[in-house]
């Protein structure tokens, strides 16, 4: 057996650990004792049963040499092969380390044919809270979420994108399973993330979003030219990005794709109505007032709620308007309503914890949280003003009674760094409202009223609410 010992490298927290290993049954069995000792665990053998016991960071693992199972905190986990004892050494398969031990203690584990690297989180680590991959129409959006702002660079060469960081990375969650027409794999490294593309020469652009800090890569197929390119390294966004040259409005037709929103039972859906209305508003804002207008969707597609305001933040819009149609449990409710964000009716975990534990919010995270709240308060004042103008404008244009401006904790308005409102055009559960909303003239009347309100808002405020 000794003749089969592998030249195997084990690194724990960047320090090499001498240990032996050997291949068996398609996997590699790795010596346990030096690893658990380095990780600060206690390790022992039961005299009677000859079973083994590891105590590590408050967890207990028990296993035997003739069984492919490990009991972890009382729960049974299976191994690819049973542990092997050689003299005083105990060998466990690789999947024990990367599939059981590391997740249990919150360590990262990377393995190759001759290496096992275990990294525990250190104070200097940059925490990646998640990596998401979304395939949208014609392009893929890769979102890397971080616990805090970070300096990074992006380099593209052939089919490889390298996102490099100045500090070691700690991945809080597993990377997503890749089923994407443009991305082959995402490989985490100690100080980098390597994205392997399916097509060499794809177009890759990157930008950042805030609250929370995210690095976003838009990946699209290159026009038929197979060239290797190196995009210039991008750092974190400039401290004072210049505002857009023209007043910019982001229009968000609510729902889309599988998410129909409200339905009236006769084929009218909120998602279709909101798109029709938003396209009308766009035309008036662009043609009559000369504003830049960005749509979150122009087709019947699914878009995450967070992506909608992210789009507005990305283009540094002056206003974000989400357009919806309402429904109620009774048919009597009718008319248009305008909402803006409130956080009064929701509890934040921090507030509750602070009350319960008498904590003072002094940690960096908490300060970030408070700053975010302050920024929200500033934009909420702008939102209130825009909502008020819009509600009055719609009431004046349609002659319907003003249902007033309301506040609600709408997800789609959260995270917007500019005045943001949600308009409910009418109720799909009210026959009179439905009749009006199906008429092109009425919808145009409402669209004109919304555009007029935006123009009034622009005259009143200019760039005052531009807080990026």
């Amino acid at each position: 057996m000794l003749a089969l010992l592998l030249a195997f490298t084990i690194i724990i927290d960047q320090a090499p650990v001498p240990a032996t290993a050997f291949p068996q049954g398609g996997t590699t069995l790795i010596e346990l004792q030096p690893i658990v000792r380095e990780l600060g665990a206690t390790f022992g053998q039961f005299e009677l049963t000859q079973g083994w016991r590891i105590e590590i960071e408050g967890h207990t693992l028990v296993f035997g040499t003739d069984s492919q199972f490990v009991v972890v905190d009382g729960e049974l986990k299976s191994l690819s092969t049973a542990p092997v004892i050689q003299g005083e050494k105990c060998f466990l398969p690789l999947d024990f380390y990367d599939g059981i031990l590391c997740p249990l203690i919150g360590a990262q584990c990377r393995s190759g044919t001759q290496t096992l690297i275990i990294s525990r989180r250190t104070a200097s680590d940059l925490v990646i809270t998640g990596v998401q991959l979304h395939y949208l129409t014609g392009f893929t959006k890769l979102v890397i979420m971080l616990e805090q702002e970070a300096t990074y660079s992006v380099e593209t060469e052939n089919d490889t994108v390298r996102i490099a960081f100045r500090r070691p990375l700690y991945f809080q969650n597993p990377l997503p399973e890749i089923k994407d027409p443009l991305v082959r794999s995402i490989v985490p490294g100690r100080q980098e993330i390597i994205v392997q593309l399916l097509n060499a020469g794809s177009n890759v652009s990157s930008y950042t979003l805030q609250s929370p800090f995210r690095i976003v890569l838009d990946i699209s197929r290159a026009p038929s030219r197979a060239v290797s390119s190196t995009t210039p390294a991008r750092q974190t966004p400039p401290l004072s990005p210049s505002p857009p040259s023209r007043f910019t409005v982001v229009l968000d037709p609510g729902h889309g794709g599988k998410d129909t929103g409200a339905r009236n039972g006769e084929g009218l859906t909120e998602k279709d109505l909101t798109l029709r209305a938003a396209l009308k508003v766009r035309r008036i804002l662009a043609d009559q007032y000369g504003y830049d207008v960005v749509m979150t969707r122009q087709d019947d597609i699914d878009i995450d709620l967070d992506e909608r305001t992210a789009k507005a933040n990305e283009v540094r819009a002056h206003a974000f308007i989400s357009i919806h149609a309402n429904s109620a449990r009774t048919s009597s409710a009718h008319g248009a309503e305008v909402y803006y964000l409130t956080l009064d009716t929701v509890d934040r975990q921090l507030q509750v914890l602070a009350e319960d534990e008498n904590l003072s919010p002094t940690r960096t995270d908490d300060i970030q949280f408070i700053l975010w709240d302050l920024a929200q308060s500033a934009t909420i004042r702008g939102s209130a003003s825009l909502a008020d103008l819009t509600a009055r404008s719609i009431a004046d244009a349609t002659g319907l009674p003003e249902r007033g401006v309301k506040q609600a904790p709408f997800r789609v308005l959260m995270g917007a760094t500019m005045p943001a409102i949600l308009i409910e055009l009418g109720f799909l559960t009210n026959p009179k409202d439905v009749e009006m909303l199906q008429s092109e003239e009425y919808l145009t009347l409402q669209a004109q009223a919304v555009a007029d309100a935006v123009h009034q808002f622009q005259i009143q405020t200019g760039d005052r609410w531009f807080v990026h």
Partner: protein
Amino acid sequence: MVRALVLALFFGLAACSGGNTPTTLQPQETGSPEQPASGEGKAQITFFGVNPGSGSLQPFVGEIPAFSSPEKGILIMLDSYFAMKFPEHLVSPFPRGLRPRAVYFPSKGMCVLDLEFPEAEPPGMGSEEESTMVYAIVNGVSLNFSEARSVKILINGREASPFLTHLDASAFFKPRK
């Protein structure tokens, strides 16, 4: 009964019955619903239905079987709430088929409700309908059970669901008038 009366006052029933309009009524924590005296086997609960005229939530008092813990009480209450025949003058804020799956308290005062909606297709609600449903649940749970100061709603074990497409499903909601 005392708690039911406090809730009724909070939601303006006293104002409807004549006299001066109360101005600054606040919900008061008076503990979980009054447990029945031995042998009675019932607890009084304040539920909320939709007033067809105004569209707003209106409280009414009902009874549920006695329970041994807030978690069990909330489960029993929601089971009854979702399936009940509402008083004639009110409409249920809930779609058919909604059922409670689990109730737990991850932290003091914070209650998580995991609800089940068996149909594959979401009910397709506008924001008013969604808000009415959410706050009927939040008000019902939070104002009847002082252990639940704020309430988070999961549907089929998940935060992001086609059920909650307007309100922030990650939030712990506080009761709203």
